[in-house]
């Protein structure tokens, strides 16, 4: 993130590369993430998100320089995981485990786990501590996983598609619990999701990644200052172009167009139509399209999940 703070960055990435055969999953990715931020890592399938998260969590090697909380993730993974928690998706709690056993286990192995906090969170749900995971609904499993993770006083929480497959009620509950019961200025959340609209209001920063390239690294405050979206009629669009203003992306709308500008004074644009801050989804499409125009066609990206290729 480009945001300047008084804190040291908890993630420092410089020139990260990851290659699977001929395919470059990450290509010269550099960024910094500071404490107390909620960062959205946004990208389509195969963009390199999971490769990047795996590297941050010490689950896979990355070329380049990567430091998380001052540690080398791959070499110091056990030490790192005392301060970092993650949820990879909603269905990875072992089905044979009972709820109270899950709490006992995490309490036994994690020095920063607060059993009372986990139990208090679970008390708000309908989950029976004696139930096996396989007897719980998908939403309940997510609640349990979140209860376990939120009871850990970790400095960094990594969430990869944490609400995938959940209905709208559980998704809302998930994010409101995350904000109310977990997040504070000392903690950082790094989150990926396809449902960008749902987390848009939570995020303080975004990282856009596409085909292994970082295409945007910005705070939300900066986005509202740097980018403007202008809704104009067809005639209005022509006037904008005649005035020499060049949108980075435009999209046809009913009876007009939506033009997205970067680094153009909003007051200048206001003379042509209605302006507003672009949504994350619109901005993502704009930035990715712009970035792709300047890049040669690359190999089709495989959808790299939480496993190595070639297996």
């Amino acid at each position, binding site marked *: 993130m480009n945001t300047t703070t008084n804190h040291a960055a908890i993630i420092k990435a410089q020139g990260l590369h990851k290659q699977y055969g001929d395919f470059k999953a990450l290509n010269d990715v550099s960024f910094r993430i500071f404490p107390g931020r909620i960062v959205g890592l946004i990208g389509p399938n195969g963009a390199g998100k999971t490769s990047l998260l795996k590297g941050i*969590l010490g*689950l*896979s*090697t990355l070329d380049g320089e990567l430091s998380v909380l001052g540690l080398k993730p791959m070499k110091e*993974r*056990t*030490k*790192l*995981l*005392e301060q970092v*928690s*993650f*949820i*990879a*998706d909603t*269905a*990875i*709690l*072992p*089905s*044979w*485990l*009972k709820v109270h*056993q899950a709490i*006992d*286990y*995490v*309490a*036994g*192995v*994690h*020095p920063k786990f607060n059993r009372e906090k986990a139990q208090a969170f679970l008390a708000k749900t309908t989950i029976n501590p004696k139930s096996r995971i396989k007897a719980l609904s998908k939403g309940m499993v997510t609640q349990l*996983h979140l209860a376990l993770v939120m009871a850990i006083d970790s400095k960094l929480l990594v969430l990869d598609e944490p609400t995938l497959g959940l209905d709208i009620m559980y998704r809302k509950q998930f994010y409101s619990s995350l904000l109310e019961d977990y997040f504070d200025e000392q903690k950082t959340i790094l989150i990926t999701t396809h449902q960008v609209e749902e987390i848009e209001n939570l995020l303080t920063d975004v990282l856009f990644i596409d085909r292994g390239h970082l295409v945007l690294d910005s705070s939300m405050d900066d986005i509202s200052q740097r980018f403007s979206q202008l809704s104009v009629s067809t005639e209005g669009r022509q006037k904008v172009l005649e005035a020499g203003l060049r949108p980075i992306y435009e999209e046809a709308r009913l009876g007009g167009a939506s033009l997205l500008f970067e680094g153009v004074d909003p007051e200048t644009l206001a003379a042509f139509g209605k302006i507003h801050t672009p949504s994350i989804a619109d901005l993502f499409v704009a930035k990715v399209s712009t970035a792709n125009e300047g890049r040669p066609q690359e190999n089709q990206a495989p959808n790299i*999940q*939480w*496993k*190595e290729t070639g*297996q």
Partner: protein
Amino acid sequence: MNRFLIQIKRELWEHKGALITTPIVALTIFVVLTILAGVAGRGVVQDSQFILQHDGMMSFYSYSSDGQQQSFVYHKGINGLTTIPDTTAQNSPMSLLPALPYIAFDHLAWLIALIYLLSCLFTDRKDKSILFWKSMPVSEWQNVLTKTFMAALVIPAIAWIAASAYNLFYLLFMTIWSLFSSVHHPDLLFQPQAVLTTAWSFLGSYLATSIWMLPFISWILLVSACAKKTPFLYLVLPLLALVLIEYTVLGSHHISQIIGSYINVSDPRAEQNMLNMSGWYHVWNVLSSVQFWLGLAATAGLLYTTVWLRENRFEN
């Protein structure tokens, strides 16, 4: 220490059926069969007598309902079996009796260990739970060594406890049985020291087997961490291929002999009869063999590779 104990607990939770329920069911079956045999045998045996022999051994004679004499030999422990002058006995010597549960549970334990080891580093990849375990601050070395510890010591310990429990039951049951039969010398029929001596001896024997089996344990762990599917095939096929290649190319059987020395799980040193001496002798015997130390080096290599695989390559 707490972290190590919770890791052990986790294994017991996950593999409760194999590690706990199976020995309990086997023990229950043995107990029920013994009771049934006792009830049936009470009607058959009409009379019996003990004869104390000059060397302290004991002969137990019984007479079946048709008047035929049956004879058994019972003695105080297992150490003097070969000196028993069993000239009149027609059936198996009863001195084997306290040892039999240990032999049976030992075989059961290694069957359980095989199933446990094959699945322990495979199912978490298969059911996708590996990422949950990997999200905890537990190193793969801790994980792999815990599973080694389970197979080498915890599973045999459970088997030893089950066998000892059976012998205690047998002692009690036959004491009661003798009260309802014509045998009126329960202290002679069941000598607690024989049970204790056998238990102590097999503790050593189990330990000897455990340390002897370390290369085999680590090989199965590697297979479990490596297999994409059907770990049993990954276990057997490479070994089979090695045996066939050696036989085809060199015409020798060294590899099959080495594999055979591990498959014969009850007797780490095949040239010794386990009933001829205390099981603790086997510990010394194993420790003094070159193959054990070479096997230990192989164990280190196999465990290192297993940990490397767990750290660097996984799927879900």
